[in-house]
């Protein structure tokens, strides 16, 4: 089948499905789609991710969600319970381990064994495919809040079958956002197709009365991604999902660090996602937003990590996002303890509470930055559609080839890897090298101008060293990187 942005037809879907379920032994258990849906329909509404998000959007409150996952079921349940109770998390995750993400289920089996033997989790997440639908249901049934799978899996078809069958009502990912930052050599047309499958699956649940939330992974590589680039990808994935019948979509954005730019990016993302969905005929979609606390290298000092966490939460609160993904003070070291994780949540929630009744007020600067992001995003999206001759799915593949879409620091061979980002003097992320991203001349000049300004202030050339310094900046205690000599 050639790649195209069309709703999968059911026969095709079911044929693929048979093969998917064979890729690991636990696939067998979720064979009966109707039964799966019935089970998912039976869980209480208060545990439905999509509905809780919709309510939060309506009430204008921001919900907190941690990342968390360990190898063994009882430990994982204990962990999530702790984050729910002690950490006051509103939404629960299950972070999936890296072997599962690469469909290396045998390695998972080894990791599970080793974890049992050594008494500590040897996997960096919960191997949900190996644990199968019963394991996944056990998790969901032990908790009284909605559960989502958070991963980074290029081919998440089997996983998606298992989690939805277990009543996990949200799935993170997308054909671009779970490929380019998460793999080296998986072709884009394959991941887009595989995620069409996941989206279609969600659509089928939706059509059968079980709202399912889908969340494109906004931050991508989490490192100096210009807002217009990540927004473009989020909007594309929202459109691709909508085509497959997905109704509840959460578009995401990873904090860049300049408060005005970040708020502008959220506003632009929200408004443009809405507008593009309408433009392409996807009505009655429920669009919510998610803000990721700083996704790049984190400060090692705990007090400073708290600062990064709380500062990000201020931005989220003022921008009134629907949910915020929370970091911890252990971020720079490794998977956090449950206590550190709960502390990150509590700190975040406290900031949200302190600012619950406040919001940002429009200034000239905010309007200006919002417009710039929107215009840049439009340049990119126009070019993607054009590259696909009107077909968005094919456009994406072509756009990555040509570097129209180009994600900084991505490991994938299918990413052009030409553009370079850096911060301007105010800490906003700009295109240092715009590569083949088809910005208008005016926008190119603006980006260049803002960086030259920094170059002049700091008396240094505008080049890759600036980018490198910016990569380390936050972990070394500031936003805008200082020239290398002053670094240790």
């Amino acid at each position, binding site marked *: 089948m050639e790649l195209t942005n069309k709703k999968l037809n059911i026969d095709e879907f079911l044929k693929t499905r048979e093969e998917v379920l064979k890729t690991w032994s636990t696939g067998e258990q979720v064979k009966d789609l109707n039964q799966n849906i019935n089970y998912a329909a039976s869980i209480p509404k208060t545990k439905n991710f999509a509905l809780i998000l919709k309510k939060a959007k309506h009430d204008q409150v921001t919900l907190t969600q941690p990342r968390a996952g360990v190898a063994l079921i009882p430990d994982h349940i204990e962990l999530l319970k702790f984050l729910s109770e002690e950490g006051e998390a509103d939404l629960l995750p299950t972070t999936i381990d890296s072997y599962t993400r690469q469909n290396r289920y045998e390695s998972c089996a080894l990791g599970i064994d080793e974890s049992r033997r050594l008494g500590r989790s040897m996997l960096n997440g919960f191997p949900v495919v190996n644990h199968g639908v019963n394991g996944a249901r056990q998790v969901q049934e032990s908790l009284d809040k909605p559960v989502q799978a958070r991963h*980074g899996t290029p081919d998440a078809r089997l996983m998606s079958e298992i989690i939805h069958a277990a009543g996990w009502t949200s799935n993170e990912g997308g054909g671009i956002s779970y490929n380019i930052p998460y793999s080296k050599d998986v072709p884009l047309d394959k991941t887009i197709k595989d995620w069409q499958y996941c989206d279609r699956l969600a659509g089928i649940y939706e059509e059968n009365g079980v709202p399912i939330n889908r969340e494109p992974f906004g931050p991508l590589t989490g490192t100096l991604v210009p807002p217009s680039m990540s927004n473009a990808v989020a909007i594309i994935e929202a459109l691709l999902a909508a085509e497959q019948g997905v109704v509840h979509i959460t578009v995401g954005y990873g904090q860049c660090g300049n408060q005005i730019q970040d708020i502008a990016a959220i506003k632009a993302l929200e408004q443009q996602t809405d507008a593009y969905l309408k433009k392409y005929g996807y009505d009655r979609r429920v669009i919510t937003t998610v803000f990721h606390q700083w996704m790049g290298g984190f400060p090692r000092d705990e007090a400073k990590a708290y600062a990064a966490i709380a500062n990000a939460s201020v931005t989220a609160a003022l921008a009134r996002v629907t949910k915020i993904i929370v970091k911890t003070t252990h971020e720079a070291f490794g998977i956090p303890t449950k206590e550190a994780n709960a502390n990150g949540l509590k700190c975040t929630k406290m900031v949200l509470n302190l600012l619950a009744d406040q919001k940002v007020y429009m200034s000239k600067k905010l309007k200006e930055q919002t417009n710039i992001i929107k215009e840049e995003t439009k340049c990119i999206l126009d070019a993607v559609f054009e590259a696909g001759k009107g077909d968005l799915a094919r456009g994406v593949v072509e756009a990555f080839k040509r570097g129209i879409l180009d994600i900084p620091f991505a*490991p994938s061979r299918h990413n052009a890897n030409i553009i370079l980002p850096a911060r301007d003097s105010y800490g906003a992320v700009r295109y240092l090298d715009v590569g083949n991203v088809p910005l208008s001349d005016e926008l190119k000049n603006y980006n260049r101008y803002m960086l030259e300004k920094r170059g002049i202030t700091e008396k240094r050339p505008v080049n890759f060293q600036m980018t490198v310094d910016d*990569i380390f900046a936050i972990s070394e205690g500031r936003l805008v990187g200082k020239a290398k000599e002053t670094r240790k």
Partner: protein
Amino acid sequence: MNAKTVVIGVIGADVHAVGNKVIDYALKNAGFNVVNIGVLSSQEDFINAAVETNADCIMVSSLYGHAELDCQGFREKCNEAGLNDILLYIGGNIVVGKQENAEVLERFSKLGFNRVYPPGVNIEAGIEDLKNDLNIK
């Protein structure tokens, strides 16, 4: 000067690419010959690259926490491939969670690594050690 050769890459199912790109840049700036096999690399990928390029050192990065699983038997495989004297370094976030440095160091020394870097040690420190270990001034 005859530039020394270093193979770099990120082992296992690990896709963290940022550090890898920075290390590439820093080693080249420091005058090394860099063979970068990128993320998602197996032990074999590292060893093949080292044999092919007659490398002096393999610098393994592991960020995602599975290094202990991914590195089992690495030194032995090096030996089998005739890379008996090759320097093996590893750095990044090499275990799951925040653990005692000393203990982690010991575990990886046992796995045959010459130098083991805990989280937050930047590549600059590794380059200095490498120069010492290779007698470069």
